[in-house]
């Protein structure tokens, strides 16, 4: 089974309406439409680095929850991050991985391992105390309160397919205006 990514994001947005989120690539474009918010940290710059940015935010803002919306291709580019996060074990970090088996915004070519890579098991072996894997939207929706309760770090793997084709606004995610907006919103929040 699998679920539409935008439907999964809508579930998350309903239960996490107001906190820091670090989304990447198509998850970012979807998330910007589904939950527009100044605490969306869009400017991760280099592929694979989202979870490292999220770790920096989690360490720098210990009173705030930080959610990262990673991709499978992106996480494969920075797998050591699982060990780094597991080692430092920030209680305020939630790591969602949207596994679609392809480099969706780079021509839909398959990633190594396609959909067979088990990120949840990898994360647990790397030191994440809680991991989940969902391939059914209803089950994810039933479990989201439990997923978001308690302490992190938590890794949640979601087996997804494309949903609504939200526009890919690369100019915006790299813009100085977005960075300033996030910085201002974070300063107000802290």
């Amino acid at each position: 089974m699998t679920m539409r990514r935008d439907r999964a994001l809508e579930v998350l947005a309903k239960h996490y309406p107001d906190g820091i989120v670090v989304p990447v690539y198509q998850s970012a474009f979807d998330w910007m439409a589904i939950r527009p918010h100044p605490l969306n940290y869009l400017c991760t710059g280099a592929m694979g680095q989202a979870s490292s940015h999220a770790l920096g935010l989690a360490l720098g803002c210990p009173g705030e929850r930080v959610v990262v919306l990673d991709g499978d291709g992106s996480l494969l580019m920075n797998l050591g991050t699982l060990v780094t996060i597991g080692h430092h074990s920030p209680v305020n970090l939630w790591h969602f991985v949207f596994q679609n088996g392809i480099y969706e915004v780079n021509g839909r070519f398959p990633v190594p391992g396609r959909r067979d890579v088990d990120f949840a098991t990898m994360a647990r072996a790397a030191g994440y105390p809680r991991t989940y894997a969902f391939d059914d939207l209803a089950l994810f929706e039933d479990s989201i309160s439990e997923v978001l309760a308690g302490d992190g770090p938590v890794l949640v793997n979601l087996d997804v397919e494309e949903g609504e084709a939200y526009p890919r606004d690369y100019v915006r995610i790299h813009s100085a205006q977005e960075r300033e907006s996030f910085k201002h919103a974070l300063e107000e929040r802290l």
Partner: protein
Amino acid sequence: MNGTAALTGKTTALTGAAIVDAFASAGVEFVVALPDIVTCEGVLWPISSDDRFRLVMVCKEDEGVSICSALSYANRRAVLLIQHTGFLDSVNAIRAMCTDYGLPVVMAVGLQGMEPDLAPAQSRHAGIRMLEPIIDAMQIGYTILDEHSTGDEIVSRIERAYAEPAPFVFLIPRSPL
């Protein structure tokens, strides 16, 4: 930029303790690191037991670039302590965060394999020799911590990096013991 100082001797006059104290004086809370043979004994080991800092060990240097970048949004000061090979391996992350975004990422980069009688630009090691031209091309400020360097200079450079904001690189050619 300060890239042409003639270098002599096997150690910098600047001690590891002076560098560590300078980091603390500049308000650095986080040291994000991957061990480098030039700075491990004099800087990293002391920091690991210094409660003025939170040490964040990473598996790969580009993680550290991102962690320091994100910390800057929360107004938390950090130094990324790495080897020059890690800098080279992290060029895309540094390009994004430092050149494109201008974030105050402060890096202390050990020049592993640096010959004691040469300046970095004259090194027989390509990875060291090409470092300054690459940093220049990335439009990042840097200085070489040599026998003329002081802790005050380190403090001043870090203060300026966060005030502007702008990235900055300290190149460390000798083991500061």
